[in-house]
Structure formats: C-alpha cells, structure tokens
C-alpha cells in the first residue's frame, strides 16, 4: 500500500473514532471500548507471542497483577489508580523478569514454555483465591464515588471510551516503534530458528526476557483499565485462562507478529464474542470460548499465518 494513502487512512480512522461517541448508543460504545481494549491487549501479547514466537498461554497473570495492584493500592491506601497502573506495570515486569530468569535460563521452549506460563498464571490464581486480602473467591468491589479523573471512575462511558482509544493508539505506536527497532530483528531471528540465532551471537534468553518484560508491562496497564471499567475484580476471572485466550486468539486470527493483525482480529472477534455473550447470557457459559476454540482450529488448518499476511499475498500476486 502507498505510504501516504496509509497515513491518510489512519488519520481518517482516528478522526472517525474520535467523533463517533456523539452519535451512538451506550451499548455500541461499550462494544467499541471492548474492541479497543482487546486490540491493546492483543498487541501487548503479540510482542512475545508474535514477534519473539513464544506462545505464552498465561498472560492473564500480568493482566491480573495490573488489576490487583491498582485496586489494592486504591482501596487500602487511597492511591490514585493512575499511579496504581504504573505500579502494576512495574510489578508485572518484575514478575515477568523472574519467570524469564527461570524458564528461559533453563531453555524451556515450545510446548513446555506454553505449559509453564499457563502454570504460573494458575498458581497465582489459586493463591489469590485462597487469601482474603485479595478478596478471596468473592472478589473486590471498588468503592464508588463521584466521577473523577483522579480516581479513574466515571458515571458515563465517554471518558472510558477515550481512555481506551488513547491507550490503544499508544500501544500501536509502541509496537510500531518496536517493529522498526533493532530489537525486532533479534526477536525475529529467535522466532525463526533459536539455535541458529544463538550461533550467530544473539543472546536468545536475554532478548526473549526483554520481549516478555515489555509485553507484561503493557498487559498490566490494561488490567487496571478493566478493573476501573467494571469496578469489580475477582481471581476467578482476572487470572482466568479465558482472559489469556482472549489475548491470544485475536493476533492469531489477524496475523501473528504483524502490526495490524491484532487490530483486525479484535475488530472481528470482539463484536462476535460480545454478541454471543448477550445472546447466551452470562460470560461463564463458555459458548464464546467454544467459538474461539473452533476459530483457532479453523485458522490453524486453513490460514495458519492469519488474515493479514493472507490478504497481503493476494494483493501481491495480482
């Protein structure tokens, strides 16, 4: 695609989404907020899963750390969730660093990496449901007050809408910068062939940790956003496999490791899952996960590289 045309389209899209809240109902605004948030999360996951090729199945861990850090700081010490958000990001990166230290150091790869990340998320979920400090199995309710930017709580949906839009744009900016930095080439070489990357002097465990830490940091920020949006968190949902799957499915459908894959994936899957949820009722029925599973299987069989690379190739072949 022509570079200027792409820029124009991008600016047009941003302008469109900036004014659209004035014309739509709250429900549609909710769906758009979900689309933006999941685009954000998918982009964050895409850094480790897509760029570096390490399929983390336990990103709910970082999401949950973000949600819990800001909420606990706010409830116990009255700290503004905005600071809590940063604190959550830092804590989450710390966790990612430690996990990376363990699993990358011992050269855990492929399916064992995926399983281990799932295990770490499950361990933290069980610990969080066990202790009352985290609200136990009942969860934590964020005390409601008046709308306030400082407290990150609003009666209307519009502020959440713009916050999620800005967060998504920032995240896209971060992935864009990352994709054009030298780090991307390190990540890419590891993804393509880790042994070969090591042989030519790329310290693979170091750069995998870098990707993991960055990814964890940004994932956590959106955990705080979700906590403030729903004003309620519980270990069973915040640390759930379901949240991890939410982050994985979109980049895979859109195109693993591409810039716009997560965006496209989110614009397809999020409305779909929201519609299913509203048809079937509570999110615990699992119907949306059933659809995700089927979509995952279908993509792996027919379009293993995702939609974006597929479409790109169609254009090139003409």
């Amino acid at each position, binding site marked *: 695609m022509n570079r200027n045309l792409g820029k124009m389209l991008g600016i047009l899209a941003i302008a469109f989404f900036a004014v659209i809240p004035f014309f739509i109902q709250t429900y549609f605004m909710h769906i758009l907020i979900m689309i933006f948030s999941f685009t954000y999360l998918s982009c964050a996951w895409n850094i480790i899963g897509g760029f570096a090729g390490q399929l983390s199945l336990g990103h709910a861990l970082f999401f949950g750390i973000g949600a819990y850090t800001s909420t606990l700081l706010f409830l116990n010490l009255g700290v503004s969730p905005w600071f809590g958000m940063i604190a959550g990001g830092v804590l989450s990166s710390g966790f990612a660093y430690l996990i990376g230290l363990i699993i990358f150091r*011992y050269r855990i790869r492929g399916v064992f990496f995926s399983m281990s990340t799932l295990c770490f998320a499950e361990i933290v979920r069980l610990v969080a449901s066990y202790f009352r400090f985290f609200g136990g199995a009942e969860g934590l309710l964020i005390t409601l007050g008046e709308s306030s930017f400082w407290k990150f709580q609003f009666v209307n949906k519009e502020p959440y809408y713009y916050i999620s839009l800005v967060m998504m744009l920032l995240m896209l900016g971060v992935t864009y910068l990352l994709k054009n930095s030298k780090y991307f080439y390190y990540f890419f070489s590891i993804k393509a062939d880790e042994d070969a990357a090591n042989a030519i002097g790329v310290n693979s465990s170091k750069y995998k940790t870098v990707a993991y830490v960055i990814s964890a940091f940004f994932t956590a920020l959106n955990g705080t956003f979700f906590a403030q949006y729903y004003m309620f968190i519980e270990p069973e949902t915040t640390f759930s496999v379901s949240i991890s799957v939410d982050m994985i499915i979109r980049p895979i459908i859109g195109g693993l490791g591409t810039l716009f894959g997560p965006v496209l994936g989110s614009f397809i899957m999020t409305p779909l899952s929201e519609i299913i949820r509203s048809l079937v009722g509570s999110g615990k029925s699992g119907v949306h996960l*059933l659809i995700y599973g089927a979509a995952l299987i279908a993509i*792996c069989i027919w379009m293993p590289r995702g939609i974006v690379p597929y479409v790109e190739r169609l254009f090139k072949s003409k």
Partner: protein
Amino acid sequence: MSFNIIFEGIIGGLLIGGVYGVIAIGLTIIFGILKIVNFAHGEFLMIGMYLSYYSCLYLGIDPYTSLLIVIPIMFLMGILCEILLIKPVLNAPQDIQILLTFGIVLVLQNLALLLWTGDWRSLTSPLVFRIISIGGISLKLTTLIAFLASIFLTFLLFLFLKKTDYGKAIRACSDEPEGALFAGLKLNKVFYLTFGIGTVLAAIPGALILPFFSVSPFVGFSFTLQTFIIIVLGGLGSIPGALIGGFIVGVGESLGALFIPGTLRQIVTFVLFIAIVCLKPSGIFGEKQRE
C-alpha cells in the same frame, strides 16, 4: 503421623500411579509416531469419564462394563480427530500444532460445559465404598481394580506392539519413518490408528477412575499437566519411562496429599511441573528430547 498411614499412602500412590502411567503412554505413543504434543489428551480422558458416567446412569451398568461403549466411541473419535484436524498440521511449525490442539481443548471443555453443565458428578454405587485389607493395609477395591486393569492394559499394548503386524508397523514408523515409507507402509493409516489408540488410552483410565474421582468439564487440564510431568520424567516417547514416571508422580501426589491442605494441593502439581521441566528436560531414561 504413624508409619502405617505413610505406608498406605505409598501403596495408594503406586496404585493410582499405574493408572497415570497408562494415560501417559497414550500421550507418549502419539508423540513418538506423529511428533505432535497433544494438549487435549486430558480432555479425551474427561470425555471418557462422562461417557462412562452416563452409560452407568442410564443403562445401570458398572464403569467396567461401560468400557464396551467407551472404547469404540473414543477410538472412532480419535481417528476422526486425526484425519480431520491433526493431519492438516502434521508438517506445520510447532506453534501451529500447539495452537491447534489448544483449540481442541477449548472446544471439548466448553462443549462439555454446555452439554453437562459445570457441576461435579460422581458415581454412587455400593461398589465405591468397598474396602479390602491385605496384610493390615486397607485399600479401596476400586483403586485396586483400576491398577490391575491398567497393568493388564499395558501388557496388552506391549503384546500388540511386539506381535501384531499393525504393532510392528507402528514401531517401524516410530523408529524410522522414512524407512517405513520405503518399506511400503501406509503412514496415514499408522498415524490415525496410533491417534485412535492414544485416545483410547486416555479414555479407559477415565472410566477406571470414575468410581473414586468426580468429573467436571475442567478436570482434563490437571491430568494433561500430570501426564506432561510423567513423560518429562520418563523421557519423551519412551513407554517404560512413562510407566515409571506414573509411579513416581502417583506416590509423590499421594504423599503430598497427606501433608498439604485442600486447595493448595493443586498448586503443588503446577510447581512440580515447572521444577521438573527446568531440571530434567531429558527424562530418567535419558532419551534425547526431539523438537
């Protein structure tokens, strides 16, 4: 804590370990032949448990007789699964294979949730509570049957692999896939048969443990995890390794249960998995890890 309780714990662990061993053999032969790591192995076990549960409920039979229903259904399901889903990704990169089997996990789990709700279900037949004592140690009859059946099953599988033509074909494909192809073996057929057998080896233990294990749509994952621990311990692709690994995990878990309270017990499995994957990537029998 008396010595007797610990001793009973060890015996109980060995018995259940034999069952774990069979589950792990199922996963390991699939890996040995198709070179694919099946995330959904525990979910096949879960489906086996439900099939057996409902056969018992509606037909009034016991879980052992229900195997006559469970085995053919699961064998067909495994074969279909291989032909329709696994075959297209056999030559794909490993991450695609991981994602595909993870997709199967999601589908089976949530299908079970939809069909049978998330309630825990368990059999309540008089058989369940029978206790027998041998030399001062009391054991549940059902655990003992599950163990004996597992050992018998392993023996049957061993005979099948050594003596029958199909078994020889499977071993040939495991050892030297290209050579087997040149020798005129139909790899396709060997692949789907193996996958069918692997699936059945997950489903039979499901029916065997049903008398003393409740089933819910999400029991599969913890079994998958245990199975992974076992095959990492025993060495990927090694059948005797899987059996020995099963005993180790069974005893470890049973002793852990004596010292660690309820909810936290699950954590032990997760921590154990990470620890073992870190420390023992090549297994007891030292078979080289293949990617």
